[in-house]
């Protein structure tokens, strides 16, 4: 039986489902509290956006039935659905959309809100027609509208975002047992296809083993994020379970502090990339699950290219490059956040780099607090390892203001062109940027985190790839 | 206070004991390979008061404890201990049988009044318990009997509800005595009952002990290292040294005409009335357990020791009146 969810089925039919996840949200308000856990639980399920991404990364309609872009690429006109209703009983209209878009600029505090800065005006042309004008052309803006930034709130439903979220989605927020689980129930007034399950419990586990045990003892039905890939063997060998493996947006980056003298020399950076045997690293620290990528682009982005050939594993070459740059024998501080993949990969990186002639000193910094302050804010580090899970974050990560301190005007120019141009230009320019990043060795992309899920055999509708912030629960069925 | 007991002066009466209450034969006590008490013979008749004296470590307490079967865990007793009216041997008897004897047929008063009572239980309950265990009184009667006992040891009735820590040492020792007398035991053993008490309190407690046993015509085995006390309380005395009884006999005899050289030395050393500032001493120290010499245990400290003393001196005289010495005082070498 399941833990907290009380058994039995609700009048709407269908059964209950429990999903095990790792990070519990600190709050339910993603407008002021950062972290992936809140949109994972709420976006697409409780809140909906105008447009959303499908499993292959394409932008498709959601609350907006369709949209057009003006020729100067600055004005977007959305046709909204007319039968969406908020769970507080209010009809969803264009004015709610205007309210939501403007509210990002005024009331949101998390840094992601800057994606809305480009909007100069949003107007409700009619209850079902919304017009948004941008200050300059930006492909990125529409994409960002698929993320939590684009979530649609009710004008009268934002008083208690932290505890009582109100949205138009297929599920209603029902209960939060802090430290344990969040319960969502089916929204029987949902305007679209109604979900199969009457109630879905998201159970949170801090410990990977506990998560596995919960599935093994049927406390939960799905492991939403496998944190201990080595332990998968007990499920792959058991016919009661299915294992789903796909990709995510999470590039595990071995970041360099490019403002440090030692990293000013491109040869040092390249040497580090070549000294690491990425295949072996993936095998040892993530059980071979995941994908090797040569740059900051996951395969689900339209401009993906396999760039792993740019810096292949070559210990001899790495050694000679280090000699040439004079970095050989230097000590680098690898400051790791206390996260499983970072701890694991850090040890392999250390071992690999030391064989190439560098000295590596590992420090562990408590994540998030200590790591954020020391590495992220103060850039007091030489190298670090962290997965960048935001979608299309190449430009955000590699700039002079970010903790990577990567100052490269050429790259910035490419990115600007990509954002302003049409779709073809965007793809071409992004490819250019990704390649430059890899050649310049602005960091090393250890691997791409896999989307690993385990579930009872009969559960259908689980997404193969996890490329959005949302975990779409409405398609799940038995 | 008027309570002179004329019949106490019955001391000089001839020994006409009907029967022996306690008969100890060849008692030995050892721990692992060390013998602590060897070959003790001892008889106490009904109504008789027998003293057991000796310096610290001579084995007095072990002798007493082995009669009760309360030796510490790794200490073993051998030989024979019989009690009148009990149809089994006490040495080696199982706990079930021993616990029926203890507190009913044999009772004991221990040396330390401060620790002998349970600090968390009221005095009255502790006394009543002694009677309830052996079912000599029913529950309500036991309380009344306890009050009665307390009165007999001259404690006020409030004592019944007191906790031991509220009583002085002398009062506690009287409680312990009341406890021991609760079931009218045939034999009362007192192990240095007054060593921790002041003289005036000692006088009272000694008197109560003697009166207690006389009232019940119980037998008394009284252990002490104080010669004067034993002389006041007892009729007969056994002197122990090095785990052996070295001399036995009536009090007047042993204390006026000692035959064993150790008894002689002890008497001299305790004589503070002598006209000299310097006291006569026994040379050397009492050896620790297990380090006593073979043969005569006293020979290493004895001025009269000869090569002969390397042999165990045999017991001379009757069990109740004899000694074990090769060179006894007053001539007549064994």
């Amino acid at each position, binding site marked *: 039986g399941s833990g907290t969810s009380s058994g039995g089925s609700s009048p709407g039919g269908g059964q209950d489902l429990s999903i095990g996840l790792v990070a519990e949200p600190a709050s339910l308000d993603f407008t002021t509290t950062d972290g992936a856990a809140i949109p994972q639980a709420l976006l697409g399920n409780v809140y909906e956006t105008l447009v959303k991404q499908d499993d292959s990364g394409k932008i498709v309609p959601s609350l907006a039935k369709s949209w057009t872009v003006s020729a100067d690429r600055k004005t977007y006109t959305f046709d909204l659905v007319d039968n969406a209703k908020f769970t507080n009983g209010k009809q969803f209209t264009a004015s709610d959309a205007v309210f939501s878009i403007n509210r990002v600029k005024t009331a949101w505090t998390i840094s992601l809100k800057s994606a809305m800065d480009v909007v100069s005006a949003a107007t409700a042309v009619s209850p079902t027609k919304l017009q948004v004008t941008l200050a300059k052309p930006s492909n990125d803006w529409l994409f960002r509208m698929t993320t939590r930034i684009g979530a649609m709130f009710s004008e009268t439903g934002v008083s208690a975002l932290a505890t009582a979220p109100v949205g138009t989605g297929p599920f209603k927020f029902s209960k939060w047992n802090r430290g344990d689980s969040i319960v969502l129930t089916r929204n029987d007034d949902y305007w679209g296809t109604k979900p199969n399950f009457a109630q879905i419990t998201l159970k949170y586990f801090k410990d990977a083993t*506990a998560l596995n045990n919960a599935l093994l*003892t049927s406390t939960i039905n799905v492991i939403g994020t496998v944190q201990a890939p080595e332990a998968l063997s007990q499920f792959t060998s058991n016919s009661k379970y299915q294992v789903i493996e796909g990709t995510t947006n999470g590039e595990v980056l071995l970041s360099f502090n490019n403002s440090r003298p030692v990293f000013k020399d491109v040869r040092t950076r390249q040497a580090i990339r070549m000294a690491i045997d990425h295949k072996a690293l993936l095998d040892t620290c993530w059980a071979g699950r995941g994908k090797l990528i040569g740059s900051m682009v996951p395969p689900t982005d339209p401009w993906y290219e396999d760039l792993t050939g740019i810096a292949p594993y070559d210990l001899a070459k790495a050694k000679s490059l280090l000699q040439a740059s004079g970095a050989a024998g230097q000590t680098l501080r690898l400051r790791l956040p206390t996260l499983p993949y970072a701890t694991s990969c850090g040890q392999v990186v250390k071992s690999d780099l030391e064989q190439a002639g560098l000295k590596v000193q590992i420090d562990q910094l408590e994540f998030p607090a200590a790591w954020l302050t020391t590495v992220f804010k103060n850039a007091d580090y030489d190298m670090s390892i962290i997965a960048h899970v935001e979608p299309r974050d190449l430009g955000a990560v590699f700039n002079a203001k970010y903790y990577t301190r990567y100052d490269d005007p050429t790259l910035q120019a490419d990115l600007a062109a990509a954002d302003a141009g049409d779709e073809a230009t965007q793809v071409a320019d992004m490819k250019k940027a990704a390649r430059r990043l890899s050649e310049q060795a602005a960091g090393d992309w250890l691997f791409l985190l896999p989307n690993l899920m385990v579930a009872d055999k009969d559960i259908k509708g689980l997404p193969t790839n996890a490329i959005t912030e949302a975990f779409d629960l409405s398609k799940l069925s038995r | 206070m008027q309570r002179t007991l004329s019949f106490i002066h019955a001391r000089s009466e001839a020994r006409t004991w009907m029967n022996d209450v306690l008969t100890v034969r060849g008692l030995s006590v050892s721990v692992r390979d060390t013998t602590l008490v060897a070959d003790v013979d001892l008889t106490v008749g009904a109504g008789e008061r027998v003293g057991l004296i000796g310096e610290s470590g001579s084995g007095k307490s072990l002798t007493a404890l082995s009669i009760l079967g309360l030796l510490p865990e790794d200490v073993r007793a051998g030989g024979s201990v019989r009690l009148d009216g009990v149809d089994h041997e006490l040495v080696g008897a199982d706990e079930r049988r021993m616990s029926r004897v203890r507190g009913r047929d044999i009772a004991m008063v*221990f040396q330390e009044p401060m620790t002998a009572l349970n600090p968390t239980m009221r005095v009255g309950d502790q006394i009543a318990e002694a009677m309830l*265990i052996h079912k000599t009184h029913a529950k309500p009667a036991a309380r009344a009997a306890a009050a009665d006992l307390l009165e007999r040891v001259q404690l006020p009735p409030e004592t019944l509800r007191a906790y031991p820590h509220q009583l002085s040492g002398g009062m506690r020792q009287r409680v312990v005595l009341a406890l021991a007398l609760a079931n009218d035991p045939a034999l009362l053993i007192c192990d240095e009952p007054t060593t921790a008490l002041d003289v005036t309190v000692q006088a009272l407690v000694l008197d109560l002990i003697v009166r207690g046993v006389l009232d019940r015509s119980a037998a008394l085995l009284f252990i002490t290292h104080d010669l004067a006390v034993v002389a006041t309380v007892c009729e007969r005395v056994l002197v122990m040294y090095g785990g052996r009884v070295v001399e036995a006999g009536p009090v007047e005899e042993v204390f006026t005409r000692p035959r064993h050289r150790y008894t002689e030395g002890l008497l001299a050393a305790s004589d503070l009335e002598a006209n000299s500032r310097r006291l006569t001493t026994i040379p050397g120290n009492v050896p620790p357990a297990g380090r006593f010499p073979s043969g005569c245990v006293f020979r290493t400290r004895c001025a009269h020791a000869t090569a002969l003393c390397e042999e165990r001196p045999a017991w001379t005289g009757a069990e109740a009146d004899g000694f074990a010495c090769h060179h006894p005082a007053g001539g007549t070498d064994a």
Partner: protein
Amino acid sequence: MILRLIERTAVFLVSLAVSTVLVFAFMAILPGDPARVALGVNASDAAVAELRRQFGLDRPLPTQYFDWVGGLLHGDLGTSYVSKVAIGPQVFDRLQVTLWLVVAGMIVALIVAVPAGTMMAARHRQVSGLALSAVSQIGVAVPAFLAGILLIVVFAVKLGWLPANGWTPPAQDPGMFLKQLILPALSLGLVQGAVLTRYVRSAVLDVLREDYLRTARAKGLRPFHALWRHGLRNAAVPVVTVLGLQLATLLIGAVVVERVFVIPGLGSLLLDGVSNRDLLLVQDVVMVLVLAVLLVNFLVDILYVALDPRLRASA
């Protein structure tokens, strides 16, 4: 007795006051900015400053301190920086969970320790006693979380008798509550029990050497009865001390077991609070702990008096 109570209460209040200062000072030096943690990876400095202002973190420390203490005095534990909900009910809920767990664990521990420790002491020279001692020694040497993992593997995963983890409030489903309580209580209780066993053993050994036990046996009580009637209450005094200490440290110490069994207890709340830099929450939880420890000390004191008449003031 009354005086002792008044004195204790005074000490209690002063200790409480001192600990508020200590706790607050400790939080003040904890590096890591709660606002930045809340705002996440890409926050601008301006946004962080704004949030600090909202939290009241920009005020002088004494003001913050007195605000906090003033709130505590009114029973108001404040609002969490991170989750923006009132801390009081949250702490109260978690404390309940942990109390269930700890108390159940202590009961298991007592059930294990009292007979085992007594037997070990009573038979400390015999094979059975030594064997028991050896088992308890091993029990002490096993970390509680390891015991928990092993219990899960055996009873939940392999045998499937009990749930591997989770927590259900007793009011919601008593049956489930009990089922889920068994394994965590066992893993906590067995380890604590092993520790306690050794204290019981040494307390009983001490009591066994006491003269009054010999007196009791000289009265005709059999060894077991003598120990039962006269020994245990006296042995209880040192054991109660240890019990109090264990109870106090377990409130947080149970966090490893909470982690293994996914129980939303006070320890987990504290750890989350620390890692989210939810300082106010951490402060409050620590104060609750201090209060609990002082309270336990207080109770232990009273228990002493109940157990040992020597401590009752009398003329």
